[in-house]
């Protein structure tokens, strides 16, 4: 039963108020994409032991989608931020790097989109 801060309405929301939406920062593939790229987009997901970026909706609250950066093993939350972005903002990346030295968005994204 996680507690995540909704960056829109400011509520620290309990998991029962939230709807999980899976991995964040996917790039939509559509007409013109080859089968493999489309399959990756639709089905292939990271399942990391560690830093992860997730989509959440404050469903029983303000109704807004937001993103959360958290560690799947320690349950540490590095921050939540707007869903209207293609990459985690700088302060989130800094917060992660502060706690997980050597971590970088680049290696993360390289792994995610390779």
């Amino acid at each position: 039963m996680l507690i995540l801060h909704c960056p829109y309405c400011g509520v620290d929301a309990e998991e029962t108020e939230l709807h999980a939406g899976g991995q964040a920062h996917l790039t939509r593939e559509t007409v013109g994409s080859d089968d493999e790229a489309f399959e990756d987009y639709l089905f292939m997901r990271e399942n990391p032991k560690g830093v992860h970026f997730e989509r959440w909706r404050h469903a029983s609250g303000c109704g807004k989608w937001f993103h959360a950066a958290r560690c799947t093993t320690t349950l540490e939350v590095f921050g939540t931020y707007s869903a209207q972005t293609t990459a985690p903002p700088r302060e989130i990346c800094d917060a992660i790097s502060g706690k997980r030295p050597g971590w970088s968005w680049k290696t993360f994204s390289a792994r995610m989109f390779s």
Partner: protein
Amino acid sequence: MELENLQREDVLMSTRLAAGGRLLNRGKSVRFEFNGKHLRGFDGDTLASALLANDQMLMGRSFKYHRPRGLVASGAEEPNGLVNLGKGGRFEPNARVTTTELFDGLTATSQNHWPSLDFDVGVVNNYAARFLPAGFYYKTFIQPRAAWKHVFEPFIRQSAGLGKAPKDRDVDTYEHFYAFVDVLIVGGGIAGLQAAKTAGASGAKVLLIEQTGHWGGRAPVDGAVIDGKSADDWINNTLDLLDKMENVQVRSRLMGAGIYDHGYALAHERLTDHAPSDDMPRHRLWRIRAKQIITATGAIERPLSFAGNDIPGVMLASAVRDYVVNYGVSAGDRTVVVTNNDDAYRTAIALKGAGLDVPLILDARASGGGALAEEAAALGIRIANGKAIASVKGGKRVTGVQVCAQAGEGAVLEEIACDAIAMSGGWSPVVHLWSHCGGKLIWDDAHAHFRPDADRAPTGADGEPFVSVTGGADGAMSFSGALANADETARHVSKRIGRKAKKATPPNADDVEMAPLAPVWKMPQGAGIKLRSKMWLDYQNDVKVSDVQLAAQEGFESVEHTKRYTTLGMATDQGKLSNINGLAVLADSLNEEIPQVGTTTFRPPYTPISMGSIAGEATGERFQPLRRTPLHDWHAGNGAYWEPVGHWRRPYCFQRSGESVEDAVQREVKATRDSLGLLDASTLGKIIVKGPDAGKFLDMLYTNMMSTLKPGRCRYGLMCSENGFLMDDGVVARIDEDTWLCHTTTGGADHIHAHMEEWLQTEWWDWQVFTANVTEQYAQIAVVGPNARNLLEKLGGMDVSADALPFMAWADGQIGGFDVRAYRISFSGELSYEIAVPASQGRAFWDALLEAGAEWQVTPYGTEALHIMRAEKGFIMIGDETDGTVIPQDLGLDWALSKKKNDYLGKRAQQRSHMADPDRWKLVGLETLDGSVLPDGAYATADGTNANGQRNTQGRVTSTYHSPTLGRGIAMGLVLNGPDRIGEVIDFPKTDGSIVKAKIVNPVFYDPEGEKQNV
């Protein structure tokens, strides 16, 4: 006394002593019933102590072999003492006698025996033990199949099972309760009390919970002296002190059940189990958020594995002591103590002090015990060091022990007569709560147990530990150690939440010097197979040392696999006694160290909690909110036969007096087709989509083009998921230049609105579009049938002629004085208007329609008539023709897939080879040759069989009805290449083995030219 003199089991007694029992109120007698026998106990008894006092040692039978089972423990870890408690609406199976407080009028029966507790036919399993080895169920499930079906299963079903499921509705009530605290402390022993005192002094908001009705844990029984006071005095003083702290709350009978992410904890409170009442909830589930949690859950004593350790009368040493000290009950007159550590000497000393006989203490350690051993020796108790139990004598009750050397193979040195055995294999910290949310364990060699590893604690949202452990649960095995540990832990925890606990000296307790424990996992060390197959690890599930060894031999090396293969630790006690002993045996069999083998996963709840408490208030009418349309009350008053649709109730039909449901449906269809019907369509989803980019957005959402729709017109649209499957359909109306109103299915309103928002917020966030779900703002009524226009014209107010309001057009206006939006759409194939009015005017408008429609015998109809009429027209229904695997192309809806659009949700997915495959199951009509109604969901068979030997299929029924219009059964179905096979007859086998033959036809059974709706 010679052993022979004690062979008659019925002279052996457990009994109430003349004095003693610190928890008893001997002034108050309590009556209760066990297996029909009327018995008496005292106020303060548990059901276990009261049964023992009445010489009822035999409590039940084991699960697999139906071995006689007696009490082993005195607390939550008890594996055997499970009974059916109460009657009727208060019946509960698997109630644990050791945690059931006695009350006047309690009734209990033993379980898992047939036909009686003393004579049980299932005990034949006991003699068949070598045919029921580890993995029996798995092995038998595989081969031979016939034997399973005809031999094993009927026998097992008759004779197995712990308890029976209640039959009556629970008469008690339950509730949830929310608490938010700084520090939650689980466990009210001396460590928990001290931790609450220290944390409370820091000003933190503290909640201290204890699962039993008593405080102080084992300290009073074990004779602790704290700061010069008796344990009871210290406990009472501390409780008084905590009571004076406004920031500290203490609650007993509240069991910490589980710890979850980010400081969430569940606890189960038993409010009236000890005093049944109609005025209060029975149980309360506490849903707690704590910044920090301290588990002070103590430790549980381990049994020793010797042959015959499951015979009634063999008990944990601590339990024997508890019954004497707390309840003034002796388990037997002559008790042999067997141990590998000093603590069990306390039992011998307590028994001697109560005037009972302790003929022998068997200490498996060659070097023997420490100060307590000296004290026992001084009392004249015979102590044999380096000795063990070779075998227990007795059947339904212990009659004696055979003594051997621990180091040997079990050669019998002597036999001692006794009627109880108090065993101790050391103590295991209760690490369950620590482990629930990821806390890791380390192996403590000195005490031969796992305890929490403070360096790998469960962590919270800030990445810092939020669970700490103290006292016996932390492996602190002395009174002063536990108290100092508790004080330090609470100080540390206070600091973590930004508070400072004032410096104070922790209480001091007098400890005795203890000699080191020696791990003993088998007794004797070199026991052969004959002895090992009588050494029980898991009493409830009948798992023996030999079973675990067999599992290891058969290649089950992982402790998690061994658990499932042998069922070790899978019973209702979840292995509280058997866990460590079992994995020690496994480690030994694998030639590995215990820490390398590791433990199985500890999962909540710590002990079973009631289903009622989980449901809380959400029962019956309060299970979920009911959505009501503005016409709900009219329906209820006019014979509505309800059907749940999402959270709504919709009338399936309106029954007239004396009319069957089927007749009502047929009447409603005929009346509508012949003259005039009314349908409450208010539940249909209505979503406003508005903004400069609304058209562009809807073109992405729907498979067809919505941006080109003209204001004042309607268009039927399909929505697919990104994965290509059809998810919803409905009529879209363009209201003005930048506003559309999207109708969804009744069940779809909320999730389609969420679907729109998801794409707008997370993918096309720069598009200027707003959405609003206005479903409940309108009452919507379908006016249907050849006289629909006549009715509206009679009410008057707006032009509803074919020219002014043609098919698939809409207009705002007034009808009969009501503000309406009239949509000229049809889901029945008849001339039809769907008319929306503000919700507040819905009922009045409905009444006006009924009154004015009387001359055409206006007939309200329900969802089943709606379904039949749409099926007669070949219209699909989401959830019938679709099931998440169906694409629009399967349903002949290619015309609704825009070729002009570059992209829409699902377009790319539908280009994948499987979806573009021409050989798919496609929509057709089905006409049975005999006119009968096909069974819903029936499969059409094809030649041959598949890889599993099942008959091949070539289609299935998706909708099936008796059509009153055609006077025969009609159906829709998906059939392989169906539209190319019109006229072909295929077979639909029924569940009774008969076959229905059906002809493949066009799915539009009624008015294929659409002349009726377009007039």
